[in-house]
């Protein structure tokens, strides 16, 4: 339950950062937090109380492993999602730096040459 | 050439430690990779590595670890005391000390050893001068006091790396 509350809190903080902060970098941070909230959700879905990591040890029998481990699929999803998030974050930061170069500001509200 | 071999040995040891497998395929790959790494590292001039392959230097290195640990723990207790003391009895400042060590590697090891010892932090190393931030600079002759503690390390480090 606490984890779910944390998840909601992450979502809220992420959205807050995304919406309320003018600084582009802070927006990126907000987005990253949002991303992590989603990853957390994925984990929560696959979590089994008292379960172990879904890695098969040498000599472990299959049925026992299945019984013990948490659901591996969400974990795989999270891994992939983290990779994707990493790529996106990298791209975003690169863009933000370039924005600073071009607009001489990191204030998102001033980055509005394209409108109408 | 010797440098490359030494680097290779250390890299290979790390590989074996990490993989902890004596599967021939794995060992072969690891050896190849270590060799590649060693060759690639050649321009970096790892003069330390060949020295550490000499048995007596290695011995001193092994001895140095607990000695350093002892210093570290002792100083740690001192810092811990200052940190939890309600009055925060500190007297910080940056002092300068000179080392008699000649090689850069030895000086760096010294600098890091000093840093690892709580209460002292090597802010910079310029030539033979060490700029050390101390959490509690002694009231009397701070330079000399620092110089003395440095000399303890220097003895070991000289035997390891010079």
């Amino acid at each position, binding site marked *: 339950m606490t984890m779910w509350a944390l998840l909601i809190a992450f979502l809220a903080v992420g*959205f807050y950062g*995304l*919406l309320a902060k003018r600084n582009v970098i802070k927006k990126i941070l907000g987005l990253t937090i949002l991303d992590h909230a989603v990853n957390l959700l994925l984990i929560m879905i696959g979590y089994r109380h008292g379960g172990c990591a879904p890695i098969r040890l040498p000599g472990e029998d299959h049925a026992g492993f299945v019984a013990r481990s948490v659901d591996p699929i969400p974990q795989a999803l999270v891994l992939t999602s983290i990779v994707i998030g990493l790529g996106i974050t990298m791209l975003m930061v690169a863009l933000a730096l370039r924005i600073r170069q071009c607009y001489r500001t990191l204030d*998102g*509200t001033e*980055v*509005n*040459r394209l*409108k*109408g | 050439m010797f440098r490359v071999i030494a680097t290779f040995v250390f890299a290979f040891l790390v590989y074996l430690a990490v993989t902890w497998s004596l599967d021939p395929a794995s060992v072969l790959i690891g050896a190849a990779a270590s060799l590649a790494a060693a060759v690639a590292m050649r321009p970096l001039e790892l003069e330390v590595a060949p020295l550490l392959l000499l048995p007596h230097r290695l011995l001193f290195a092994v001895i140095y670890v607990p000695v350093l640990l002892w210093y570290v723990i002792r100083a740690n207790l001192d810092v811990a005391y200052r940190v939890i003391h309600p009055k925060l009895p500190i007297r910080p400042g940056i002092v300068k000390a000179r080392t008699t060590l000649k090689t850069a590697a030895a000086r760096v090891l010294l600098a890091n050893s000093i840093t690892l010892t709580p209460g002292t932090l090597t802010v910079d190393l310029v030539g033979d001068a060490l700029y050390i931030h101390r959490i509690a600079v002694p009231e009397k002759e701070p330079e000399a006091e620092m110089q003395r503690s440095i000399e303890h390390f220097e003895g070991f480090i000289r035997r390891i790396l010079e």
Partner: protein
Amino acid sequence: MNAELVLLPILIPGVLGLVALFLPGRLRAVLGFLGSLATLAAGLALVSTRESFHHAWLVLGPLNLDFSFRVDGFTGWLSALVGLCAFFTALYAADFFRGRGGAPGRLYAWLLIAAAGAEGVVLAGNLLLLVLCWEIVTLMLFVLVITGSPEGAPAAAKAFTILGFGDVALILGTVLLGSRGFDHPMDFATLAANPLATGDLFGVLTFLLLFAGAAAKAGAVPLHTWIPTMAGPASPPVMAFLPASLDKVLGIYLLARVSVSWVTLTPGLQFAVMAVGAITILAGVLMAMVQHDVKRLLSFHAVSQVGYMVLGIGTGTLVGVLGGVFHMVNNAIYKACLFFGAGAVEREAGTRDLGKLGGLHRAMPVTFLCMFVAALSISGVPPLNGFVSKWLVYQACVVARQPLFLVAALFGSVLTLASFVKVLHSMFWGARPPALDGVNEAGIGMRLPMVGLAILCVLLGVFGGAPLDQAIGPVKDVPAASVALAGGLDAAGTFRPGVVTILLVIGVLAGILAAHLGGARARRVRSVFIGGEPLDRAQNRFPGTEFYRTVHEMPLLGRTLDAGEKGVFDVYAIFGKLGGGVIRGLRSLHTGVITDYLFWCLLGLGAVLAVFFWC
């Protein structure tokens, strides 16, 4: 006769037009001439046949598009008329553009394709197919005007926009009409067998959409404004071919089909249609009165004449429908003739401004005569064709017990006559401005179509009953229309063209005789001196436009007409302004700030969730 022959009037100009697109200029003209002639021939070949061609093409849900073309007596004649218009236009254009570097753009190719489209509309047996061909005509009008000259672009845009509105309305109406769950819902047979009742909103809406489509094409008020705008930049052959004649033919043809066979109009709707007709008559003719540019003036008359057709069809009486449809045919003939004439004068005299023209009847006698006949015809002077059809419309008003509309129609007719007196006076009579001294008669290629059309004006007037009998009857699928016309109609009176003609000829002959006897030809010509200096002939002129200055000075009407001239009542301009406001508002919402956009997304997500959970 082979059913595939029905396709000939479409395929000939269509294929030749496409071929002509890729030919060099001179060959293109030849192909245009031959192709339109062949189209005319193919159309004429169809006049006495009743065939239909049917090829199932596409069935998708309720959408059913068969290649079904059919010809009956009426559409055969219309097909021939389209061919005739195309032929005369091609002939005229060849001469009109001679010495000017040839026809601009790929005029002949577009002309042929437009003819193919018009033939398709006329011969289609499936409403959707009709719409398809209809759009091709719209497109060709746009292409003809925009490639005609660099100045044509705005006019073409306006025309395409208004016609596009009509087309969209027509498509919507078509789809609504076809959405009633019948087999082959768009086939004429299905539509005629299951007329739509207009008692409910669906019916009214459907009819209004179809009506808007037809009205925009034909140029009924308030969707007429593209025609006068186009009059300036579009060349006379183009004006004569599409806006003046073919577009009316198509629009009114559709309106007749819709309101006669596919939709049963309630009295209220009939009244509305008649009102549109009456308003169109008056607005068009009044606006025409104050024009100085002959092409613009003619284009307002082109609008005005549509009013008669709409009014006639709107009465819902058989005689009215016949009158409206016959007027549509007649209008194509005399209006094309008038535009040809005006174009000839413009080409030879170098101006379209009525104030700068005058006294050309000697220099251009053939043009003058043809325009004279056409002008009398459009003014509804017996025994010309315009009178016959107008007479039928008047009768329809009487039958439908709409005295107000009758008065409007009569008034419009009188004003038309007055207007054309002005035109003829300004162009052909009165003093000739010195700038026009070297003006010659138009070339043979331009005279021939005018003469042909003028002769048709006379023939259709004198033998008015014959075309009605031959051609127009089948529109209502009544086999013996002439029987009806001759007396079977519950008309207030009957019209015997032959008798009237004989009487009129006798009267005219008597008049000419009297004139000769009275020495009316003796006219004194002398110079005028003021203050010792000979007055310039130009200053001494009294152009016809002066007569109608007084119209402007009438308090309410004058101001209204001025406003109309400025485009105050132009739906295109009105909606342009409204749309501009909406656009500015929407654009100001796009602030360029990412946070705002994020808020929109959140709002959108909120709306989505709200619909899912609270609806």
